[in-house]
């Protein structure tokens, strides 16, 4: 029973993290700020919701498969974010700075 309550708590925390990521996606002005905040918060939400599912399922093969999906997503998610940011930097996307001198 306490594992069920713990898994529900983890899942609700993960949903709050994902909502914060979407707020950050709409809040910031530059592309680099957006990609920074959304990738970090998305990864934290992914870890937390998969932990909630594993706590709900218990110590089974189902939980082991969920752990495998979590490991693969943790390996590939920063790589794809880095590929997008590198593509934007090489293609020449610059941040418009505010000119305060003069």
């Amino acid at each position: 029973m306490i594992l069920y309550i713990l898994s529900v708590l983890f899942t609700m925390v993960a949903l709050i993290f994902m909502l914060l990521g979407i707020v950050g996606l709409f809040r910031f002005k530059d592309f680099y700020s957006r990609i920074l905040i959304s990738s970090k918060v998305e990864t934290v939400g992914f870890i937390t919701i998969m932990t909630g599912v594993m706590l709900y399922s218990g110590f089974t093969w189902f939980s082991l498969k969920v752990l495998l999906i979590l490991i693969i997503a943790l390996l590939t998610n920063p790589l794809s974010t880095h590929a997008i940011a590198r593509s934007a930097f090489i293609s020449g996307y610059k941040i418009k700075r505010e000119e305060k001198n003069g």
Partner: protein
Amino acid sequence: MNFWSIVITILAIFVVLVVVRVIMGPTIWDRLLGLNMISSKIIVSIVILAVLLDKSFLLDIALVYAVLGFLGTVLIARFIERSGNL
């Protein structure tokens, strides 16, 4: 109304919000970032659907979707980086 069905409904609402960002994104990299986020949310949705229906083979589909989404994102990023010249 189960708890996991409520979670999967909230995830669907999140996907709709990200689609708004994809449509009104100023640059093409914003759209690519939205594609990455939608892929991540769909993986979570498939895992929660496997918990909800208690079917274990849906996790394999989530695994394949994770690998294919990563591959697609990296390939589109390289395609834009070299300006359409693979």
